[in-house]
C-alpha cells in the first residue's frame, strides 16, 4: 500500500500526462476540423487544375469569323493561321499549349518546290531533337456519300506560347501553323501517350 505522498506524486504525474494527452487530442481534432478540409479543398483544386491542363487547356481548335489571306512563309520564317493567332490572343495570360499542324514550305530560286515525305519527316526529327513534342493524332472526314467517317492519321506538334515565339526554325524552310479539326469542325481527339519518337516512319 502506498502512503499518501507516494499516491499524490503518482496522481499528479498521471494528471499532467492526461492533460498533455488531452491537449494533443484537441490539436488533432482541430486539425481534422479546420486543416483537413482546407487541405482536401486544395488537393481537389489541384486535381482539377491538372485535369484542366491535361484535358482542356491544350488548345486544339479555335473558331473565328475573321477572313484571312494565306501568306506562304519565306525560308527561315513562320506564319500562324488566323485561328491560331486569335487563340494566342485569348489565352495570352493562361498556361496553355497549342496542338498544331506544321506545314512546311521550301523556296528555291524564287519558286516554291514540293517537299518529299522523307524530307518532311527529317525536319520534324530535327525539331524533335530541339525539344518539341510531336504526336500522332487522327481526324476524320466523311466519305463521298457523307454516310461514313473515315479516319486519317497526321502528325501534330504541341507548342506553348513561349515555344511559338522562339520557334527554332531552319533557314531552308518556311513554316505555317494551323489547327486541324474533323470535317464537322469538331475537335480532334488527342492523347498524350501517342507521342512520336520514331521519325523514320511516315504517319500520314
Amino acid at each position, binding site marked *: *500500500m502506498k502512503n499518501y505522498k507516494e*499516491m499524490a506524486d503518482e496522481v*499528479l504525474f498521471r494528471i499532467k500526462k492526461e492533460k498533455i494527452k488531452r491537449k494533443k487530442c484537441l490539436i488533432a481534432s482541430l486539425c481534422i476540423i479546420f486543416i483537413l478540409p482546407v487541405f482536401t479543398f486544395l488537393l481537389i483544386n489541384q486535381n482539377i487544375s491538372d485535369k484542366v491542363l491535361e484535358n482542356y487547356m491544350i488548345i486544339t481548335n479555335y473558331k473565328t469569323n475573321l477572313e484571312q489571306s494565306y501568306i506562304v512563309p519565306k525560308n527561315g520564317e513562320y506564319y500562324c493561321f488566323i485561328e491560331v493567332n486569335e487563340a494566342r490572343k485569348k489565352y495570352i495570360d493562361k498556361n496553355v499549349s497549342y496542338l498544331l499542324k506544321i506545314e512546311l514550305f521550301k523556296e528555291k530560286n524564287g519558286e516554291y518546290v514540293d517537299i518529299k515525305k522523307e524530307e518532311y519527316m527529317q525536319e520534324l526529327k530535327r525539331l524533335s531533337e530541339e525539344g518539341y513534342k510531336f504526336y500522332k493524332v487522327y481526324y476524320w472526314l466523311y466519305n463521298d456519300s457523307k454516310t461514313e467517317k473515315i479516319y486519317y492519321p497526321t502528325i501534330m506538334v504541341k507548342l506553348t506560347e513561349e515555344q511559338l515565339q522562339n520557334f527554332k526554325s531552319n533557314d531552308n524552310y518556311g513554316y505555317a501553323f494551323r489547327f486541324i479539326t474533323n470535317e464537322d469542325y469538331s475537335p480532334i481527339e488527342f492523347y498524350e501517350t501517342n507521342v512520336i519518337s520514331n521519325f523514320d516512319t511516315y504517319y500520314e
Partner: protein
Amino acid sequence: MNGSYNYYRFLQGDENGLVEVIREYKDGLILYLNTFTNDIFIAEELAMDTFVKIGMKKLKDKKYASFKTWLYTIGKNLAIDYLRKNSKKNIPINDKIIYNESILETILKDERKIIIQKAMNNLKTEYKQVLWLSYFEKFSNNEISTIMNKKVHNIETLLYRAKQSLKKELEREGFSYEKL
C-alpha cells in the same frame, strides 16, 4: 480546512491542495471501494483513478451536498465500471481475503472497527456499502442516497436490513451488536 477548500486550492494551481485531499480521503475511499472489489490493491488503484479524475474535471453539479459526497460518487462509478469490465474474469479470492484483512487491520487500527469490518465481509455488497458509508464514513442518509443513487427511503430500509444482517453475523461470531 476541509476537502473542498483544498480542492479549490488545487484548482487555483496549488498542487499541495490535491496532496492534502489525498491525505484526508485516501484511506476512507480505498476501504469504501474495497466493498465493491474485495481486493484492497484494486481498490487503491481505483482510488487513484478517482483522484486523477477529480484533478481533470471541476465540480459543477450542484446536486452534491459536499465535496466528499462527490468524491465517493465518482469512486463508486469507477468501481462499477471496473466490475462491469472484469465481470467475466475469474479471480481467485482465498489468499487475497486473508491478505486484505491484515492490511485493513493496519488501516483501521480501532479493534471495534476491525470486528465490524470482518463481520461485514460476509454480508451482501449493498449492505456492506451502506454500512460502510454510514458507520465508518459518517455520511448522512441524504448523502448516502446521492452516492448510491437511491432514494432516501430506500437507503433507510437498506440500512435497517444491513444492521439486522450485521447483528446476526456478529452474534454468530460471538460478539454482541449492542456493545459494539
